[in-house]
């Protein structure tokens, strides 16, 4: 693909990301991870190293690219516990990109993020930077979800195969066809074990008009703004939690102390239940949060109030920093924030895949949080 490629966008529309943007993104992606999605720290280090080596990260609005441009979505797959020990090589994503271009015999024009919440916010930036491509300002979840079929791309009919999965050794696996998105998830999950528990996976490219219509828009600018708000509030000694709510149209629904935490394993996923005792304006109330990688349900005094796909975010009540499910412990003081998810996650088709029933709660109906006027 060495020939000069015709640009499918106006270069003036690109926004170059800085170190500060990445620091803010680390916090913002943690917040949108709703407890899961893995820790973006190591990914941020890789992105910072790419910047140091002279590569640039260029962000582009989804509507600023020609409708027929080819956009390739990419994300990490595997166990976070493995990833902190066996660190990525760093160019797995680039190898996915090159293998995909070879497979489809066409150049890719832009990179898309699979999942903005958590660790997967960072690797598409590195892939785009190393590949010299822009990254679109959007993602397929607007938060974190545990499985591949839970993207808006899959939900709205894009077939994610053929896909390419590359590990740090240099192995590349092509899934040429999956009869369903769930099958794709299942096969990729088996393959990643053979590859040592961690890999990058690029799915079949989409045309830009599809991305424009079905991706969660502005997720990078949102996540960066969220992180900046927390950093600024801490510097000015303002309330970081209020700052997060203001930006995302969310509201603080509880201040509580963790009084109990039960964890167990179900079907390969870490699941659990968190009990909270209220303080400040919530003294005397109790609440609970059901967990499967991410925070799934929020109950107040036993009554379900917020469910997936709306975002349930736990922040440290003093610092505003996001709390992931593995950091939870007895006695911690947290603020619970509820943020309405994007409308793309609220359609009947989406709720089938990412609603309460998809996470094992068939009797709980999704009652959408009201959006700010």
């Amino acid at each position, binding site marked *: 693909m060495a020939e000069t490629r015709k640009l499918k966008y106006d270069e003036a529309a690109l926004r170059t990301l800085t170190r500060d943007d990445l620091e803010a993104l680390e916090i913002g992606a943690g917040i949108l991870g709703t407890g899961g999605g893995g820790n973006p720290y*190591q990914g941020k*280090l*890789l992105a910072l*190293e*790419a910047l140091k080596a002279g590569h640039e990260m260029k962000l582009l609005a989804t509507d600023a690219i020609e409708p027929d441009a080819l956009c390739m979505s990419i994300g990490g*797959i*595997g*166990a*976070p*516990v*493995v990833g*902190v*020990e*066996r*660190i*990525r*090589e*760093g*160019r797995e994503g680039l190898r996915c990109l090159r293998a995909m271009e070879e497979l489809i015999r066409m150049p890719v024009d832009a990179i898309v993020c699979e999942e903005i919440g958590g660790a997967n916010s960072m690797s598409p930036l590195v892939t785009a930077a190393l590949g010299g491509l822009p990254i679109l300002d959007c993602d397929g979840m607007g938060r974190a979800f*545990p499985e591949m079929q839970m993207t808006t791309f899959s939900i709205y009919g894009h077939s994610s195969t053929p896909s390419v999965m590359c590990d*740090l*050794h*240099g192995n590349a696996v092509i899934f040429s066809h999956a009869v369903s998105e769930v099958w794709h998830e299942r096969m990729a*999950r*088996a393959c*990643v*074990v053979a590859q*040592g*528990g961690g890999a990058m996976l690029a799915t079949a490219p989409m045309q830009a008009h599809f991305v424009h219509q079905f991706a969660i828009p502005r997720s990078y600018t949102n996540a960066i703004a969220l992180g900046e708000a927390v950093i600024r509030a801490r510097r000015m000694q303002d309330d970081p939690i209020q700052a997060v709510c203001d930006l995302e149209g969310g509201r603080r629904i509880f201040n509580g*102390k963790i*009084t109990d935490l039960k964890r167990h*394993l179900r079907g*390969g*996923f*870490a699941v659990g239940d968190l009990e909270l*005792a209220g303080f400040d304006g919530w003294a005397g109330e109790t609440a609970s949060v059901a967990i499967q*990688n991410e925070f799934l349900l929020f109950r107040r005094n036993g009554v379900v109030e917020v469910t997936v796909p709306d975002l349930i975010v736990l922040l440290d009540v003093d610092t505003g920093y996001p709390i992931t499910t*593995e*950091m939870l*412990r*007895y*006695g911690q*003081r947290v603020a619970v924030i509820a943020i309405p998810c994007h409308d793309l996650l609220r359609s009947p088709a989406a709720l089938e895949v990412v609603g309460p029933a998809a996470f094992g709660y068939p009797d709980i109906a999704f009652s959408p949080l009201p959006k700010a006027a």
Partner: protein
Amino acid sequence: MYRVGIDVGGTNTDAVILKDKTVLAGVKASTTEDVTAGVIEALENVIAASGIDRTAIAAVMIGTTHFTNAVIERRHMDEVAAIRLGLPSGAGLPPMVDWPDDIREIVGNHGYQVKGGYEFDGRILSPLDEDEIVRIAGEIRAKGLKAAAVTCVFSGINDTMELRTRELLHRHCPGVPVVMSKDIGRHGLLARESAAIMNASLLSLADRTVAAFQKALVQAGLTCPFYITQNDGTLMAADVVRAFPVLTFASGPTNSMRGAAFLTGLKDAVVVDVGGTTTDVGSLSHGFPRQASTTVDIGGVKTNFRMPDVFSIGLGGGSLVVKGENGISIGPKSVGYRVRREALCFGGSTLTATDIAVAAGKADVGDRALVRTLDAALVGAAVARIDAMLEACVERSRISSTPVPVIAVGGGSILMPDRIGDLEVVRPENFAVANAVGAAIAQVSGETDRVFSLVDGRTREAALAEAEAEARDKAIAAGAISDTLEVIEREDTPLAYLPGNATRIHVKVVGEMGAYHG
């Protein structure tokens, strides 16, 4: 037989003598630059105060913040080779990638990445590139580096490559000490590697410091063995510290919390340690400090040591009391250890938190007449502010809504009210030297933390038993008496997103040190 506990802090060196479970005497001396003089002074004073025969001292236990301070102040650190075995894994993130620039420069930024490492299930990631190790050994000699740190991917599962690399380095650059990450830290490569590198850079300081302790004991006429306390409140033989100085990093707060538990007999409590400048608050559970679940920064470097979950605020006996637009503010500025000169009640000219405690009739130190003229409204408001600050951090450290007692220790604990919220405050005798008491009563531990593959019929229970046996062996090797060993931590975390064949197991056992028990 008697036990001596010594705590060498940044400002004070405290010493206590214990006979079984009784504290016979406790004293404070000033810490000296060479460590030796301060330790000798504290030892002589405490022996005199207790009136015991020094030949009857069975063991000395020392807690020290010397190595932590070296890293924080960027002093006494050597240049070292940082060798990582794991390519192609981690190629994009070289050793020390997330260190602050100044400390990376001090340890020399000699990072090497070599083919090697294991996968989570024990398969080889890459065969070890032995020629490259031999080449690096040549560079170590040419650069005159003082030590090497070797970190292999998944060395918690298989330590063969770290051992082999050490062997090669010993052969090709004899005399250069080699630190293996498997001996230092836990799961999580960057944090474990950073800890191993820091450890390597502190080896010569550790050597000098242990020699200084030894000299002090000899000069005080003591011939008994001595031990140093580590992060978890347990002991290691002094010679082991020469190899593992980083394992002492968090011993200060741990010792004071363990000392508080011992002095009161309470196993579940909140401990408030008020010093001259800061107050540390943490929770005791089953007599041990609750551990922090996140990585811990040491001088700006992320490490994954198990550290007590301690919350610090800038409030101490020497904290400045200032009347401002928004009412009274207390700390974080402090006169620190100069409180005995500069506070009003000691004839100085600075209004400190200690003066407030004296004026309010809560404490009887210095000369009360010197604070009699303080405005009663000011004193009342300052007391309320101090109480509110203490209550907020106690509340933050509580483990559950079950009421637990609050133990007040440290020289500044005269600031503590008799109740904090709905909790009763307990003030043990010898509260001022609780950290030295914590050192004196320390136990020996052994620990395992690695990923076990549940294949070929190995069950979760079998893996847990295997991990426990490993931890017990380590404790016994460190000097513990086997029939006193008990498991204090046992957790297993199945690896999410992978089929159920791998689980991370952490087991820790503690027991009595053989030298003075039985």
